[in-house]
């Protein structure tokens, strides 16, 4: 193994191994290439800038009667390209400072299993599949009530300046530390208090996120025999795939995934037939509470079953579906180019009285759309599997920053899909049953009473749409997933199959979302169980042993009970559930982002890069202001629609004055439920915000200490000389091509020079 350099910066010689081949491009040569502006390069970037500028003008300034969806796609892609080429390069040069002469953990810890250098393009897909789930599909749909512009700007600008920066930095910092987790990095950088607060916050946040994802699925499957059948069938399909891989043909993953996919399509088609039978109507038409209990029981069993039986095979299916469906939607949007008939900014942005999610644009837009713009949960992925698989340091920009840009594009497409359906239908679907009464007449009366210009909902619009998508009713199908499914089927049927195919596309979309929500529920429960066992192990050492069955089952049961309680609370909430709980999901996710960025800030400060601290401080400050002010509004606001405790007081007072119905709660029992739920939600808000403030304060303290001491103490692993080479981005640059050709010319037996352990 080559001599390890003793400092983190610039080893003196560019090592050439194994023979006369460089393992990295010369930094000066790289820099020179970046600075050389050939006429072609200038032309390409001019076109990108002009097209991006034009798209933003079409979206933000022109604002005709309608706006074409293609401008959303162009605005997004051009802005991403500019952000990727210029801003992420700037971050790379001044903060990240990757050094391809240093071996990555995949090289110096190589074990052929957990640590294994993976092709950058494959790892990009892998990382994208791990970070993108239901979040970027749900948040933008709910935020569409504020008009198309606020959500679009936040998703696109937010990702370039905040979300992708967080993912990139965490990925790189974790890679430099042998793939250490966010929790471990928080303990290293912020000390015991900050680290412990970060750990507890992560655990509580996971419970909330799993609960609300489960709530989204529950809302999508309630009163839908078709959905229950096709999503239910994913369980036997996954079990079959698991057994096939375990006992029949181990390792044939692509083969079984294709078989599984065919079975999945059959389950969707079969669901349509079953839903029409008396049998389907009798046994599969389930209410929300039954479905919620089903998911809770399923969640417990799935989390204690071995991974090979259920989790791993469903993960393959989910990856397959995810990449396929997102690609399909992108192609469809570009070909169909739907016209969007929604105001740029609606009145709800300023009044805060929107029926979908309560609250004004600031701060609630920024917590409603978390995934897609800035998602703290990614920090857990970017400090998990991905850093252990990276080949070369310079690839973190493509995988971390680029991967998050892709997720953001998914969020933009979800927004477009939600905006493309009729606005009257959108509000009828997303207003809680408390407002619509759950009936077509009630929904029509409610939506038309909102006084939205250009919206004139008729009962036949709702019943026709319900028939087309093969559902009993589409009134008050809250949670975002059904709306997205209607939008997707509306777009896809113009491309394939027409109206008669709408019901297939609708249930395809529901299945697609349910699939990875269930995977997230199962995986989230497992991760939370290990975290809980680790913490409990400090008091009862026996819990540390994760293969001790009673301990594992008890810890799983505690975690399932925790998210199950929140889920049931959301399902039975007289105020509507998703509209009161979703802000909590966004706040939790953004607070996790604030924690991750706080850790990044401390690391950047300890590296002595104060001049560029603003790159991290800017998104951290924004996330902190948004989430802390949103939490404070949820805790202290005197408007019952917004403040949990204000709502609590209003209902308590009504109860004590002997009233038997209040607001949307028709009975004393319902009123008591509101009092209980708002108290739980309020207390959770307080817990989140207190923990986040502790973490941010300890990070500021660490930053200030680093500034005073001017010390360059680092928690990085020691530098090890790299012996392999790979290009950094998706497309090779000319200098990279030259070096790659030299490596390709090397005889095969000389290429494997990786040592490990």
């Amino acid at each position, binding site marked *: 193994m080559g001599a390890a350099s003793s400092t983190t910066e610039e080893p003196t010689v560019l090592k050439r191994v194994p023979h006369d081949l460089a393992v990295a491009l010369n930094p000066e040569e790289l820099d020179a290439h970046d600075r050389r502006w050939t006429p072609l390069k200038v032309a390409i970037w001019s076109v990108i800038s002009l097209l991006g500028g034009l798209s933003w003008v079409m979206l933000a300034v022109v604002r005709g009667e309608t706006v074409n969806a293609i401008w959303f796609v162009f605005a997004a892609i051009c802005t991403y390209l500019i952000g990727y080429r210029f801003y992420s390069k700037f971050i790379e040069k001044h903060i990240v400072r990757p050094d391809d002469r240093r071996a990555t953990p995949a090289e110096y810890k190589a074990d052929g299993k957990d640590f*294994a250098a993976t092709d950058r393009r494959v790892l990009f897909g892998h990382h994208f599949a791990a970070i*993108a789930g239901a979040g970027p599909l749900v948040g933008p749909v709910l935020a569409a009530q504020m008009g198309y512009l606020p959500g679009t700007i936040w998703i696109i600008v937010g990702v370039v300046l905040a979300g992708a920066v967080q993912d990139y930095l965490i990925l790189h910092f974790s890679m430099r530390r042998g793939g250490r987790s966010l929790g471990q990095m928080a303990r290293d950088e912020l000390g015991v208090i900050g680290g412990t607060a970060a750990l507890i916050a992560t655990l509580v946040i996971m419970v909330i996120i799993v609960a609300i994802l489960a709530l989204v699925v529950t809302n999508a499957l309630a009163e839908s025999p078709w959905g229950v059948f096709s999503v239910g069938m994913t369980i036997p399909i996954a079990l079959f795939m698991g057994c096939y891989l*375990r006992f029949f043909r181990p390792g044939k993953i692509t083969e079984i995934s294709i078989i599984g996919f065919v079975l999945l399509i059959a389950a969707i088609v079969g669901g349509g037939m079953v839903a029409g039978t008396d049998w389907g109507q009798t046994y599969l038409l389930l209410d929300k509470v039954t479905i919620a209990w089903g998911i809770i029981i399923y969640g417990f069993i799935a989390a204690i079953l071995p991974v090979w039986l259920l989790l791993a095979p469903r993960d393959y299916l989910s990856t397959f579906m995810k990449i396929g469906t997102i690609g399909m939607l992108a192609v469809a949007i570009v070909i169909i180019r739907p016209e969007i008939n929604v105001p740029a900014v609606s009145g709800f942005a300023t009044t805060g009285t929107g029926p979908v999610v309560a609250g004004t644009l600031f701060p609630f837009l920024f917590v409603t759309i978390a*995934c897609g713009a800035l998602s703290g949960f990614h920090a857990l992925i970017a400090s998990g599997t991905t850093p252990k698989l990276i080949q070369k340091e310079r690839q973190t920009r493509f995988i971390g920053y680029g991967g998050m840009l892709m997720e953001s594009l998914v969020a933009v497409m979800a927004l477009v899909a939600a905006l493309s359906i009729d606005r009257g239908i959108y509000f009828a679907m997303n207003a809680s049953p408390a407002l619509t009464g759950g009936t077509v007449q009630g929904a029509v009366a409610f939506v038309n009473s909102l006084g939205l210009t250009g919206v004139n909902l008729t009962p036949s619009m709702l019943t026709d749409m319900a028939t087309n998508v093969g559902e009993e009713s589409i009134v008050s199908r809250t949670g975002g997933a059904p709306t997205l499914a209607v939008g997707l089927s509306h777009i896809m049927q113009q491309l394939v199959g027409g109206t008669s195919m709408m019901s297939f596309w609708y249930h395809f979309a529901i299945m697609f979302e349910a699939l990875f929500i269930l995977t*997230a529920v199962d995986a989230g429960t497992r991760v939370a169980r290990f975290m809980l066992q680790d913490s409990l192990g400090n008091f009862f050492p026996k819990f540390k042993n994760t293969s001790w069955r009673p301990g594992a089952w008890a810890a799983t049961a505690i975690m399932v009970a925790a998210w199950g309680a929140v889920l049931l609370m959301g399902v039975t909430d007289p105020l509507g559930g998703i509209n009161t709980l979703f802000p909590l999901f966004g706040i939790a996710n953004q607070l996790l982002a604030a924690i991750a960025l706080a850790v990044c800030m401390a690391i950047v400060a300890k590296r002595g890069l104060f001049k560029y601290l603003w790159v991290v401080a800017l998104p951290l400050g924004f996330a902190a202001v948004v989430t802390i002010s949103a939490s404070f509004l949820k805790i202290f606001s005197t408007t019952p629609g917004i403040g949990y405790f204000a709502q609590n007081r209003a209902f308590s007072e009504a109860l004590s004055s002997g009233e038997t119905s209040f607001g949307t709660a028709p009975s004393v029992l319902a009123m008591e439920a509101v009092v209980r739920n708002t108290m739980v939600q309020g207390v959770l808000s307080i817990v989140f915000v207190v923990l986040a403030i502790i973490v941010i304060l300890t990070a500021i303290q660490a930053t200030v200490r680093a500034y005073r001491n001017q010390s360059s103490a680092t928690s990085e692993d020691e530098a090890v000389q790299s012996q392999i080479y790979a290009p950094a981005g998706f497309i090779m640059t000319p200098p990279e091509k030259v070096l790659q050709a030299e490596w390709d010319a090397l005889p095969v037996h000389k290429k*494997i020079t990786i040592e490990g352990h």
Partner: protein
Amino acid sequence: MTLLAGVRKGARGVAWYLKGLLGEDAYEKYVAHHEADAASGAHAAHPLMTEREFWRDQTDRQDQNPQGRCC
């Protein structure tokens, strides 16, 4: 002929990518690593796991080390 070759190359590329994405190439990578390890003689060679053993070991390791999926 060149078109056919191009299509074939493209199809091979897609198959390669899909296999990588789903992790089907994990065993090949493990074997390659194992061979390199043995060739360098740096460690007391662990016995090479068969394909069946390897996949069992892989999911069993996931049982002990769960990875979150994002929202």
